[in-house]
């Protein structure tokens, strides 16, 4: 029941919070809840067998029998860390929004927990319909989060965000239904189980577009590409980020974007191996374009948040690159980079939120000389900047290095282009850093009547776990990679005939007790 608990507990919390009468203790309650959720999710590590590539801790109940739709959840090395990242970020977000969210506090925390359920559900569902439900469910709280607690142009941003993502998922629903049909054709029994999907051999014809596998591949890919977002469909991201409140941005960058990349790994690559291989050039190119484009455009943004949003586009380009080179290095790097991006970009948004709370501006040109006024803030920001530009011994380096290595081994041409992202990344981050923190004091920093105060204890507590993680992940990556290794190996070694078996040993253990 562990996974179901992890998925559904936040939902219970959300309802509980919604009916909690006391306004004053609301945040404490929410924080406590999120910590409980995090601790419970840590128990997954205890139960998880890192040596096995199978699907573990599986739970399966019939939902709609006629169509073979099940409540089917399970975890493997690919989804493990993303779930933990989600539960890890939530308490941080609640603590970070302690003062910045001051209207409709109850609704906000309910949304947050609902979102948590949706995201964890997306990562753990092994049934297409269940997955789709969670996937779409995640949109709704996010929609409200941006729409209610967002900035001035929040309505524009929410609608853009909503329509972009919806447009993609509609095609995906069609594709899922078609997959169910194909499963029925192949096995005689209709099923929406992903494991059954894996068994279906979908006809593929190279060179043409109008064949089943290619069409299905693109239907799924489009939905995920918009979520990631891959280059030409990325324009919702900067707007959503800029208008979202800090917690919204953190969730968006930290976890929601990973839903896209994770699903590439869980759905697209194993389900459509031929199409993936045949069309990988397209995604590799788009990834590289995303890296360079995101970096270039980030460079000239006048708004810090927008800059970081475009840097996300660039970082997500790396992840796409890693996924589609289809070797151990690339995929391991991509998984690692997902976590890194969650940690470091999440932290960047938190920091920007903190300074925004003080000055109510995100315009780079109005800052300057912050370093001499807010030393602790500066140190934190600098460390996260380093992580973002992938300096060795921070987490970012491991991911980026592995991705580039994988790319070079598979397709050197893309690596030559992608490597410019290393330079451009440093350029835009450091240039921003220079303009905000160095030089003479800017107009927002100068104000003697309202001197800026450095981070308080709460904010330091918010940042500390992230900073620790930055170095932990950079210094001892094996602590994390050992858990994903067997799953990734399994995926790469069987990429043309992928299958996933259910790990039974926990059940056996249970039956021992029963006897």
């Amino acid at each position, binding site marked *: 029941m562990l996974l179901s608990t992890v998925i559904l507990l936040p939902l219970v919390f959300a309802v509980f919070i919604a009916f909690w009468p006391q306004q004053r203790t609301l945040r404490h309650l929410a924080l406590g809840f999120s910590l409980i959720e995090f601790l419970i999710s840590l128990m997954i590590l205890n139960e998880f067998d890192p040596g096995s590539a199978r699907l573990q801790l599986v739970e399966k109940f019939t939902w709609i029998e006629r169509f073979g739709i099940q409540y089917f959840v399970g975890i493997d090395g690919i989804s493990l860390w993303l779930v933990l990242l989600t539960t890890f970020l939530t308490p941080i977000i609640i603590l970070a929004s302690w003062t910045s969210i001051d209207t409709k506090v109850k609704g906000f925390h309910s949304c947050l927990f609902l979102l948590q359920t949706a995201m964890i559900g997306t990562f753990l569902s092994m049934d297409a319909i269940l997955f789709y439900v969670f996937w779409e469910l995640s949109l709704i709280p996010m929609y409200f989060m941006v729409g209610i607690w967002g900035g001035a142009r929040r309505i524009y941003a929410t609608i853009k965000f909503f329509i972009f993502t919806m447009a993609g998922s509609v095609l995906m629903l069609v594709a899922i239904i078609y997959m169910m049909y194909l499963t029925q054709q192949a096995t005689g029994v209709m099923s929406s189980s992903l494991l059954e999907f894996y068994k279906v051999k979908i006809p593929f014809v190279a060179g043409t577009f109008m064949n089943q596998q290619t069409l299905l591949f693109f239907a799924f890919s489009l939905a995920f590409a918009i979520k990631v977002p891959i280059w030409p469909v990325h324009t919702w991201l900067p707007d959503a980020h800029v208008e979202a409140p800090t917690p919204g941005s953190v969730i968006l960058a930290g976890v929601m974007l990973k839903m896209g990349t994770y699903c590439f790994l869980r759905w697209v690559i194993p389900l459509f191996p031929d199409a993936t291989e045949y069309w990988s050039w397209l995604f590799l190119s788009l990834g590289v374009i995303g890296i360079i484009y995101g970096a*270039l455009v980030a460079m000239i943004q006048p708004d810090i948040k927008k800059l970081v949003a475009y840097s996300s586009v660039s970082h997500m380009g790396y992840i796409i690159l890693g996924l589609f080179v289809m070797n*151990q290095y690339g995929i391991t790097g991509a998984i690692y980079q997902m976590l890194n991006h969650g940690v470091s970009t999440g932290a960047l948004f938190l920091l920007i939120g903190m300074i925004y709370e003080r000055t109510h501006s995100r315009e780079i040109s109005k800052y300057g*000389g912050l370093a001499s006024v807010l030393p602790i803030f500066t140190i934190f920001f600098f460390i996260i900047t380093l992580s973002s530009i992938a300096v060795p011994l921070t987490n970012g380096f491991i991911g980026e290095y592995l991705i580039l290595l994988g790319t*070079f081994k598979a397709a050197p041409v893309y690596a030559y282009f992608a490597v410019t992202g290393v330079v451009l990344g440093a350029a835009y981050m450091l240039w921003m850093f220079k303009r905000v923190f*160095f*030089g003479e004091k800017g107009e927002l920093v100068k104000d003697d009547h309202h001197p800026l105060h450095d981070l308080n204890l709460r904010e330091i507590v918010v940042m500390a776990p992230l900073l620790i993680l930055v170095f932990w992940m950079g210094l001892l*990556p094996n602590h994390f990679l050992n858990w994903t290794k067997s799953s990734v190996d399994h995926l790469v070694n069987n990429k043309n005939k992928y299958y996933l078996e259910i790990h039974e040993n926990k059940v056996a253990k249970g039956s021992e007790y029963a006897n």
Partner: protein
Amino acid sequence: MDHSILMAVLLLSPFVGFLINGVRYKQATYKISGGIATAAIFISFICSVLLFSELVGLPVDQRKIHVKFFEWLNVDKFKVDAAFYVDQISAIMILIITGVGTLIHMFSTEYMHHDKGVTKYFAYLNLFVFNMLILVLGDSLLTMFVGWEGVGLCSYLLIGFWFTDKDKAAAGMKAFITNRVGDAAFLLGMFVLFSTFGTLNIQEINAMAPTVAETSWMGALTMGTMFLFVGATGKSAQIPLYVWLPDAMAGPTPVSALIHAATMVTAGIYMIVRLNPIFIMTPNTMLVIAIVGALTALMAASIGITQWDIKKVLAYSTVSQLGYMFLAVGVGAFGAGLFHLMTHAFFKALMFLGSGSVIHAMHEEQDIRKMGGLKKYMPITHWTFFLGWVAIIGIPPFAGFFSKDEILWMSFHSPMGHPVLWAIGALSAGMTAFYMTRLMCLTFWGKSRVPKTVHPHESPALMTIPLIVLAVLSVVGGWIGIPEVIGHTFGHIPNYLMEWLHPVLKPIPNLTEAEHSLEWGLMGASVGIASISAFIAYHFYVKSPEIPGKIANSIKPLYELVFKKYLVDELYFKTIINPLIELSRKVWFYVDVNFIDKITYVIADLIKGGGGVTRSLQTGNVQIYAMYIAIGLVVALSIIIIK
């Protein structure tokens, strides 16, 4: 003592120093901060000496201490350990780093005493040493890269140390980004080597190095080494990525001494020397290295002649000397390169610290036109600087002479060298002598041009002691590598350095036995050129100070070009940076705002327009709605009936 503990202390001592000073960064007690930092580096120095002596104690073919701490990264076949090893090459390096480092830390304690951020400064400095040690000791290219980026980072922090000045912050940024260009190439180099050898472990790569030279330009090894060399041009300030180093003088002067003269900038040479078995097998890369090194030496030296800022002169001098080192490794004389690296560390650190002493005395004045005659105010600084001067211009028997002569000789004699390379080297040597003498004359000798408000004074002992130690090293440092031809003449003085390095350096293929007379001749020629240049400079700047101005006027366009550093910065701005920013703006405006978003708007507008059409059908009149039903009924029935 156990090697691993020794190694751990060696590495972690500076890091602990960094942590202590980092935590108490707000304190301005310079003596305590400086003391902690200096002690941390000194402990490392002791460890280095112990390791060195251990190494000496080992048999010649087993001189290697390898310590593995933990497995860092392990993905599929890609395995990298947090492991370090000391061999003959890295032993020299750690001695230089910690030794010179200790002296510079000591010097800094006094030099930075008035600065509020002194503790932060020492924290950065310790962190730098830590990273430098990782770079030098790392047993794989990736570990080396960790230090490689780490020193770049510290360099960034220290150049932009006085960050409230926008230009200084910009200089730091420039350094980091320029280095990043090199680092990106270094990454590619690593990828190529990993693809070729299946490992990044330096020892394994060296062991697997081919025995036959690779002559193809597009061969894997040539590409790999070429990429690594581009990485080195970034870190070691060679054409085309040297532009950051002169700007890096924005940092505190001891930083320039430690990072931008003695240690970090030599990382590129060190890397090539450490990987010499594969570099020697790629003659094409070697050729490029030699040419780039020679050209950098010449170009930087020529710029050095025209500069007025004491630190800028030294900076260009550093670039030029680094060019020499690349020239050396480019012609296969790895030992000579390392030798020059060492002597250069001594005399250039000395000169930077000397200039720091001068700047300190002159109350932050760096323009040599406002100096002159400082000899009588600050005798110790003058005499130590003087020794550095004779060392760098290559007057025997001072340190620079031996190393520089070795390089020039090898660039002529080695089968990979060429007389042209020798000529460029010799010309640069002449220029070096010229601008160094000019610096000497304008700063210490001649008439005093010091403004009335400034009262120069000799620096306190904490600053002069390092100067004296370095001066001594600048004198005797060269004696461990006396060339055979001289050693032979003066009674069998062995070339200690080359013997020490012999096991780890691949010999140059097809090296013929040299004619002693030729070697003597060339040696004489280079010393002659240097002496004459020095004499001319002395004449120009002390005897008749009006001549240089006249000459400069007579070749004004050329002078201006050189004075403005060949407009390379401007060129980069014009051809790379500005177009890039312009491109970004255009791309953002045309692609993001005006194309992708426009498309979505167009789609949205289409839907909206369609909605407008259907909207007009919704008149609100119920009877009209009923009429639609009727029409629908008619259509449906017609279809059914006609069918």
